[in-house]
């Protein structure tokens, strides 16, 4: 058994098994599921990281069956980097969830809303984790579809774990967008199959899809994935859904789930289509810029804490699409700085946004409200959450030392190298807008000198989970060397 086979099995089937274990109503098994899922994801992605660095990209034919009928896994730097960040964010969010839904050992109030959340969050989240890991290792289009659907279904279910009417409505809307997005993707898959008779990413990349039908297929898949990634102007569903979910759910949705469909878009446009069309890349970049500006402006206008963070996700996702036109300045060339810079931003967003949502969760947990006006003075009682939010915001804004800073440096560098002046302005202005809305929250949290009176103590573990995620975003800004090396294994064109 090669290390690729061993660790890719661990990283996918560990969380899957854990989710089955967590289906049990017994609190001990619920917790065991979270631990098992976290450990297998962490260990598995670490093993794959090492393997990819040592041997380059690798593959795993599940059960010895190759394509077309069998399932093949493909392991390269991009996929492993996403696996690793998912594992880190996932493990800390699991730790958080363990305390957030009340002490899991006291599920006596199983019928209460909190009890329901506690009961179903763990299995749904572990299933979602399995799906994400599956996406990052998929080697064919249809496997991507199936994992994408599992991702979408479990994510929508997590939103509806919150009891409010708004959350239910948001969850419904999210599910509809998600299903239509996946089906548009499947339409593209079918069209490609009609044209080429293969679903293998590698095989399609070797053919180099071109012509009208593949172009229509790419357009359908892009619209579907853009809707699921909440790329401007398809973003309207995201803020209510991400803000409506329970706090650990928000963190997962904003930090990780949207990255799944983003990953597929990158795979399609670059790994399979070899860059697609320059006009298409520029269009995606323009939409990304629109997201940065419009998302930030809307974030500034919000009156609820989680809404503000959710709109910030819309804005930050825009940066990831600015990478598209910068990556291939002219046909046949690709810019390594755009690749590593854009993906570093994706990874730092995952860490920072999870930290911010968990920190915000702590603040609203403490005052039992989500209004910005209600959290005034919370900073004095929850200094660590305040710290986590601040440091996360620092990284989003691209201020040093943080992963966001090095990511932006690289992205700016690629813009200079490829002489794309307009994106430079977008990147710079977006950072300033980010600071404005992060500061808005910090100001409210510091507003009063005394802590609010009706204050519910927050478990230490929840504070630590948020702070550790923020520290990880910061640490990556001091040492991104290994991650950059990993991202370059295979690069955008791994075959």
């Amino acid at each position, binding site marked *: 058994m090669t290390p690729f086979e061993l660790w890719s099995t661990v990283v996918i089937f560990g969380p899957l098994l854990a989710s089955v274990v967590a289906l049990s109503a017994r609190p001990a098994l619920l917790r065991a599921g979270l631990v098992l899922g976290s450990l297998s994801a962490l260990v598995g992605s670490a093993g794959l990281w090492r393997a990819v660095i040592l041997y380059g990209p690798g593959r795993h034919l599940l059960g010895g069956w190759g394509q077309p*009928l069998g399932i093949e896994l493909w392991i390269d730097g991009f996929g492993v980097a996403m696996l690793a960040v998912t594992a880190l964010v996932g493990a800390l969010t699991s730790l958080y969830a363990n305390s957030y839904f009340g002490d899991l050992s006291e599920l006596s109030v199983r019928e209460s809303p909190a009890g329901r959340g506690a009961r179903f969050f763990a299995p749904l989240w572990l299933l979602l984790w399995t799906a994400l890991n599956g996406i990052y290792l998929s080697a064919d289009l249809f496997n991507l579809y199936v994992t994408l659907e599992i991702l979408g*279904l479990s994510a929508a279910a997590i939103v509806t774990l919150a009891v409010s009417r708004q959350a239910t409505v948001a969850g419904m809307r999210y*599910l*509809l967008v998600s299903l239509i997005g996946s089906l548009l993707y499947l339409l593209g898959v*079918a069209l490609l199959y*009609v044209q080429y008779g293969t679903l293998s990413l590698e095989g399609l990349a070797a053919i180099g899809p071109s012509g009208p039908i593949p172009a229509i297929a790419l357009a359908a898949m892009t619209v579907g994935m853009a809707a699921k990634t909440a790329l401007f102007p398809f973003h309207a569903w995201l803020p209510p859904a991400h803000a409506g979910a329970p706090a650990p759910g928000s963190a997962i949705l904003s930090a990780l789930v949207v990255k799944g469909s983003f990953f597929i878009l990158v795979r399609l446009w670059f790994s399979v289509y070899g860059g697609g069309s320059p006009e298409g890349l520029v269009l995606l970049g323009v939409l990304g810029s629109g997201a940065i500006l419009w998302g930030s402006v809307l974030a500034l206008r919000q009156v609820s804490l989680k*809404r503000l963070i959710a709109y910030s996700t819309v804005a930050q996702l825009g940066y990831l699409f600015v990478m598209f036109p910068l990556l291939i300045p002219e046909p046949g060339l690709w810019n390594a700085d755009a690749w590593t810079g854009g993906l570093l931003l994706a990874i730092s967003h995952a860490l920072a946004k999870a930290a911010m949502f968990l920190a915000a969760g702590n603040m609203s947990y403490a005052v039992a409200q989500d209004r910005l*006006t209600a959290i005034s003075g919370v900073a004095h009682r929850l200094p660590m959450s305040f710290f986590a939010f601040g440091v996360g915001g620092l990284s989003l804004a691209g201020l040093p030392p943080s992963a966001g800073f090095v990511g932006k440096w690289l992205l700016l560098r690629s813009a200079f190298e490829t002489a794309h002046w307009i994106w430079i302005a977008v990147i710079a202005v977006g950072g300033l807008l980010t600071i404005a809305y992060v500061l808005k929250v910090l100001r409210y949290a510091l507003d009063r000198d005394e802590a609010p009176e009706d204050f519910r103590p927050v478990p230490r573990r929840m504070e630590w989970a948020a702070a550790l995620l923020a520290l990880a975003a910061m640490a990556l800004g001091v040492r991104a060397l290994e991650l950059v090396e990993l991202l370059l294994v295979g690069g955008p064109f791994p075959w």
Partner: protein
Amino acid sequence: MNPVDLYMLAGIAITLIALYAALTRAHLFWKVLAINLMGTGIFLILLAAPSRRTPEIADPLPQAMVLTGIVVAVAATALALGIALRVIARSDLPFLPDGDEDDPDSPGSTGEASR
């Protein structure tokens, strides 16, 4: 026109019509139904694909895909109906509200002015 192309065209037509319905129909059950139909249209395209390329050889792959797709569709439909029922239970209406209540910009918002 040979029957295979007819399947293809029918599949595309069903997909697009269903997509239109899913986007425009307001009633939640209509939406769920339309999404189901959209899936069926795509399955039709998939099933017609191999015969169009190599009519003489049976290709098991599309059938495997469609079978998997049906399973996914069943699960998705069940979840969608489940959540739709909850929406109806909580708001007494089988529709999604137009605006977004927590959005300070949307009509009917209760949000205070941002400062």
